[in-house]
């Protein structure tokens, strides 16, 4: 069984119009750049995207929005994107906003075979509307369910051909939980190595969660807020 595919075009085979996909990343940090390009190129549409953010106008999921491929975004924060706002106001795009921790935990639950859990986040707010609430130990909680998705697409720093992954710094973010959660998980990595080259004690995503892996190319790694100090 070979999990290695040649490139993003091969990796996204089977993603079809109308599917639900998870995309790792926080802002533009740790996003699966190659796979997004291939989805745009393939024109796969009516997608529901679970991703903490929606990119910027000309990068990240913003590229999918430009091509009108996204029917619904499930995110915690969707600023910095004019085309997003236009599609939302015109009714072309649907948005479901969730607390960031709830978004992360619903991914993790999916990857852990936990169908539902309770969280305090959003109790008493409109996020709780239509959801069950319940008291434990005199505190109020909302019941949240595991996400269901067809594909999860994550970006890692290094991976081996068995599918073990490590991430770099804060580019880790949602990627490990989404890797666990996909019915089929696609991983793109900056560097693909042979099994045994990654220390088994320091792997972030065990191979069992990854179905397809490839070494990406031409990572742009755009920076949203380039803040510097004078030395």
């Amino acid at each position: 069984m070979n999990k290695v595919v040649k490139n993003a075009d091969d990796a996204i085979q089977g993603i079809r119009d109308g599917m639900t996909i998870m995309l790792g990343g926080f802002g533009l940090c740790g996003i699966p750049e190659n796979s997004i390009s291939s989805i745009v190129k393939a024109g796969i549409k009516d997608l529901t995207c679970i991703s903490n953010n929606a990119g910027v106008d000309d990068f990240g999921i913003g590229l999918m929005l430009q091509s009108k491929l996204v029917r619904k975004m499930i995110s915690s924060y969707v600023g910095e994107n004019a085309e997003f706002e236009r599609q939302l106001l015109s009714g072309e795009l649907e948005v479901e906003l969730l607390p960031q921790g709830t978004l992360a935990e619903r991914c993790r639950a999916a990857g852990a075979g936990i169908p539902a859990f309770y969280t305090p986040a959003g109790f008493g707010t409109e996020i709780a509307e239509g959801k069950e609430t319940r008291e434990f130990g005199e505190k109020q909680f909302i019941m949240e369910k595991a996400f269901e998705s067809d594909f999860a697409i994550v970006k890692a720093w290094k991976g081996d051909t068995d599918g073990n992954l490590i991430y770099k710094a804060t580019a880790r973010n949602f990627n490990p939980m989404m890797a666990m959660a996909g019915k089929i998980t696609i991983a793109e990595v900056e560097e693909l190595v042979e099994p045994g080259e990654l220390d088994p004690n320091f792997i972030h995503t065990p191979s069992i969660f990854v179905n397809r892996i490839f070494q990406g190319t031409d990572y742009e790694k755009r920076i949203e807020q380039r803040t510097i100090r004078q030395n």
Partner: protein
Amino acid sequence: MLTKEQIAQRIAQELQDGYYVNLGIGIPTLVANYVPAGINVTLQSENGLLGMGPFPTESEIDADLINAGKQTVTTLSGSVFFDSATSFAMIRSGRVDLTVLGAMEVNDKGDIANWKIPGKMVKGMGGAMDLVASAQNIIVAMQHTNRSGASKLLSKLTLPVTGLGCVKKIVTNLCVIDVTPRGFELKELAPGISIDDVHNATEGNLLAEGEIPEIQF
């Protein structure tokens, strides 16, 4: 009246040695500049970093190393990276000792609104709802009134709520207020500000008992 920097400086006096602290965007971010001498705090950034350092120099910039405001940052000795689920595990389980947030409105029960203005484009709550639902110790840093001069300290929120009964302390340009079961309790006044000034700028139930000292820096 306090400047934004002074609001941050006053909040920094609440820091205790060993605290793990989550600072929101805006005035809260400035708190990091005023950590008192002899006090060691560790900044948590909910995108997956504990031990956030200052902005990088030009040569240190790393696109894979940002904070929750998507700004490039650095690490310190003892820093640690983790995934988003672990980050909010810390937050929900109450391991973050202090959370400083901005707000659009706070009411005298400690409810906070800071994520949505009906009719305007909604960007989302990010991690704010998790933070306010979980933290034991939340301080709001904000201007006392909004741009049209209306009070942001209310008896009843007019905007969609972010979390219920969570705000413990408010530091504004005018004063320091504790939110207690009795309502807004005025604790300290900014230089040049009178109790009446605060009363006039506060729509919610304000208690000003005894001598109210001036904020000391």
